[in-house]
Structure formats: C-alpha cells, structure tokens
C-alpha cells in the first residue's frame, strides 16, 4: 500500500459529558445556549488513536490525519483541539445553528464524499455521540463505501504494509478479534486508549495548522431530514426513598418494597 495511511477523523461538538442537559421550554430539544460544549469523548479516542498510529511507527506510515466536523462556527474550536492533539489539518463543514443537527445518514454521505475527494483509506469515528446516542454514523459510512467495518474497537494493530489490520472489538459478553484489509472504517470504544491533553505549545501550533471551511452544498450534500422530532421531554423523575441506619433495616425495607 503506497502512500501509507491517510486517516479521516470525524469529530463532533457536544454538550460536555459531565453536564446534565436541560429540556427547553418548547419541548423541542435540549437547551444548548450558554452551555459548556466539548469534543464528544469517543471522538477524542479516535483522534488519539490516529495520532498513536503515527507515533507507533508500525508497518504503515501515517501520511495524513484530517479532522472534520459539521455544525455551527464553534465547531472550529473542536477542530483546533483535534489539531492540538496531533491532527494535521481540518475541514469545518459549516451548518448554521438554525438548520439543526445533521442526521447520521447525512453525515455519512458527507463523509463518503470527503473520503473520495481526499483519498482516505482509514476512517476512525467514535462509536456514538453522547448527545443523540444513535451509534450509527460509522456503520452507515462503511455501508455507503462498501468498506470493512469494525465497531467498538478496543485495540487496533496494523499487521503489515499490505494494509492488513487486526482489530479487537467489544461485544456482549467479551471481545472478538477481526482482520480486514484497508480501506476500512473503525469506531472506537472507551477502552481503546487514553486521550492525551493538548499542551499549550501544541495548542499554539494548532492555530497555524490549516482549517478549511466548506459547505454542504459545495460537497453536493442536501441536509435532508428523514426523522421529525415531535417532542423532547424529561424522563420520569425518580425520587430517592431516604436512608436507613443499618443492614437489618436495609433488608426489611427491601422486603417491604418487594425486592427480596
């Protein structure tokens, strides 16, 4: 495989994982204004893995790590973070806030176009975004490209310079190991690695790395919405039932509740 690995890393800007989201008054979504946002935690793992593939100096050299994000202007912050972690360059596909979030199918089609344009041979995505919790984009992209897919990866090993990749994935009840040839799509699970923090010098350097703005129409992608959100509501609230003082009271309370 000549030219080595050309990795595409899609990243998403989401409400910070530690925050409890609030439903907006009109019950159409979650309040996002003035709320701390960060890179989707699974996408940090993707960026980290791409950078580690470069650092590992395995059989295939990494020649390019391209980060991409679609959404409002603030997504550029997320992309700068990805570049500070080690991505070489970034694309920001500008989708105004008013247009709402793209559906995974649209994102997959957009990524398919980028993969073709940029001659990507490995796409590493997070297994799910922690806002929509869909867990679909990677699989859909692999389907559109007719590429191999390995989801929920906990270990990625480039076996040789022919582009044979061995990936261990988390499944119900344990792990399984698969092998496939590049090009392929991998989605990351939490155990894959521990993402690095961007250091100050790297944050400064990232400001000079190229960030290209694109639009959906430029890529020939329509922002079709196939799902209509009818309403977004609070989950039924759960009230704590208070505390007991000792183990016997715990047991009798559990009996009272019918749990024992």
């Amino acid at each position, binding site marked *: 495989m000549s030219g080595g690995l050309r990795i595409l890393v899609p990243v998403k800007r989401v409400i910070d994982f530690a925050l409890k989201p609030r439903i907006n008054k009109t019950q159409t979504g979650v309040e996002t204004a003035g709320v701390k946002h960060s890179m989707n935690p699974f996408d940090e793992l993707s960026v980290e893995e791409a950078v580690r593939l470069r650092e590992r100096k395995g059989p295939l050299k990494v020649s390019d790590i391209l980060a991409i994000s679609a959404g409002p202007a603030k997504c550029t912050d997320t992309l700068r973070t990805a570049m500070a972690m080690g991505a070489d360059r970034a694309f920001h596909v500008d989708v105004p806030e008013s247009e709402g979030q793209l559906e995974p199918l649209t994102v997959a089609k957009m990524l398919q176009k980028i993969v073709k344009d940029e001659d990507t041979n490995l796409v590493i995505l997070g297994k799910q975004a922690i806002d929509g919790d869909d*867990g679909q984009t990677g699989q*859909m992209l*692999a389907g559109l490209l007719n590429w191999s897919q390995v989801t929920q990866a906990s270990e990625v090993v480039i076996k040789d310079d022919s582009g044979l990749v061995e990936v261990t994935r988390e499944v*119900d009840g*344990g792990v399984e190991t698969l*092998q496939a*040839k590049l090009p392929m799509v991998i989605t990351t699970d939490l155990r894959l690695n521990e993402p690095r923090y961007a250091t100050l010098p790297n944050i400064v350097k990232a400001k000079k790395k190229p960030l290209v703005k694109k639009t959906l129409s430029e890529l020939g992608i329509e922002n079709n919405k196939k*799902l209509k959100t009818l309403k977004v509501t609070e*989950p039924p609230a759960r009230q704590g039932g208070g505390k007991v003082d000792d183990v016997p009271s715990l047991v009798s309370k*559990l009996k009272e509740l019918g749990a024992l």
Partner: protein
Amino acid sequence: MTFALASKSILRTARRSLPRTQFQLSSAYARLLSTLALLEQRDGKLNGSSLSTITAAQKLGGSITAFVAGSGVKSTAAAEVAKVKGLDKVIAIDNDAYEKGLPENFAPLLVENIKKEGFTHVIGCHSAFGKNLLPRVAALLDVQPISDITAIESEDTFVRPIYAGNAICTVQSTDPVKIITLRGTSFQPSPIEDASTPVVDGVDPKVEPLTQWVSENLTKSDRPDLGSAKRVVSGGRGLKSKEEFDRVMTPLADSLGAAIGASRAAVDSGFADNSLQVGQTGKNVAPDLYLAVGISGAIQHLAGMKDSKVIAAINKDPDAPIFHIADVGLVGDLFEKVPELTKELESKA
C-alpha cells in the same frame, strides 16, 4: 334528479359523518404493514432476549416474519423461533458465512430479503450485533435508522432516550422502511410456545465478507445474564481493587442469585471485565433489584440502570448522587456493610 336525491340521502350523510376514513386508514396500514423481526443466534442456539423483536413487531400490528441466519440454523434456532405464536413465517438462511454476524455480508443479505418481501419495518435488538449491523443495512436502503427505542407510539412514531437518558425524544420517521433497534429492557421477549410456523428459505446473495473473524474471548459465567437478570449487584470505584471486588461482590451476588455489574470507574481500573459495565456506553439493565455498591452515581451510570424497579445503594458518602434516586440507601463502609448484608441474606435464605 333521482340520482341527486339519492346522493343526499340521510343514510349516506350519516355514514359520511362516521369517522370511517380514519378507521379504514389504520386498518389498511395494518394490512400493508409487514415487519421483519431479526433474531440472534450463536452455534445454533437462539438468543432468547432477541425474541423481544417479535413483541415489538406485535405492537405494530400487521404480519410478522422472523429472520435468522447462520450455520445450520434451519433445524436449530429457526425451528425454535417457529414455536412462537403469531408469526407469518420464519426465514432461515443456512450458511456458515453468516454465523459470526459480520455486517459486510449480513447487511446485503438482509437488504435483499427486505427488498424481495417488501417489509415496511425491520426490528433488531440494540445489542452488539444489532448496533453493528442495522445502520449499515439502513444506509444501503438510504434510510435513517432509529436506535434503541423504548416505546412504539404508532407505525411511524417511536420513543427513544437521548443524552444518556436525560431526555426522552419522540420521533416520526418519514422513511418508507423503518429500520429500528430496540432496548431489550423495554420489551419482554415473546414466549416460545407450541406454534408451528413454516420455516422457509430466503434469498442468499452470498456476498463475500470483507472481514475475517479471527477469535473471541467471552467471559464465561454461571451467573444470570446481566442484561436480563432479575437482580443485579453492581460495584464501583469504592471496591478499591479487583481482589476486593471479587471478594466482596461475588458472595453478595451469590446470596441474591444476582448478576454482577460494574461502573465505568471500576472497569477502567481493572476491577471488573468490560462486558460488565452498566451505563450509557455499557449495558442497560432494568432488574427488579439493582444494588449499587461503592458507586457515586454519575449520569453516565444512571443512564444504564435508572429504570430498575427498586434501587438500593451502599456508599460511605452521604452526599453521593446515587442516594437521590435510590429507593433505599445505607451510608457506611461497604467493606463492613456488604459482608454483613451477605450474611443476613444467607441466613434468611
């Protein structure tokens, strides 16, 4: 003139005022509606919890076809599914190539069968298999799938949790084919009874998988399966080490006949296997009793267990968020309280 009069007859007017259009529409939908319920199997053994796809299909109405593929499934898993009542047929694809459920060939297989039979709904479980496969199927059909649904409101409207279960979203699909994964804890599996549904062959496009299956390493355990256990005891960072986790949690689980779960902190620290993680990115459980030991109750963890019937917590921090949702909480040192609880449970058993 006579004709005009007839058209205005009282009978006709009365009939017209009945809400019959709506009624006919919904029954027409039910007639046209046909659902493919995707079942899971391993080495010919049917995964019982995947029978929840049939329950969901029954909620939709219309005809139901079960689908199973793998090595020799016709005489094994498919024959078992055939005993479930209310099915139209069971499509069984006997082919070793589908045994491991690799999406690169399993997705085209499903697509061909969906196209041939004209299914309007395809339902799978939001399990490792379903999550991996169905979005790929949807992309091949140019459909936006719907993940991890917890309720069905109508043939095109579904309820699903977002933001780690902190918001509940109702979505309406405009796609001609609805590709859905469901949350197992929200739909009871259909019982296996004594029906004898016909088992038929489907189309097999025999697409070569792009990926090779190499090996697997599954945690073997005699305990009830975490996803479907009636009781779950779950340990967190408070257990301090793998040795302590095993020493404290195993007897407790034994005394309750419970499955063992863990928080992400416990899994990340190596106290417990990854497959035991309960939460947004791990398993969703909704047992009759969930006992959280040494778990503070981060929102990502609560996402996976807050639908449990009764939640109990043992934690030394009286301000731990887990106490806000626990039906009963005990503040104390788990290394003292859990063995005491285990003893108490054993003596009463």
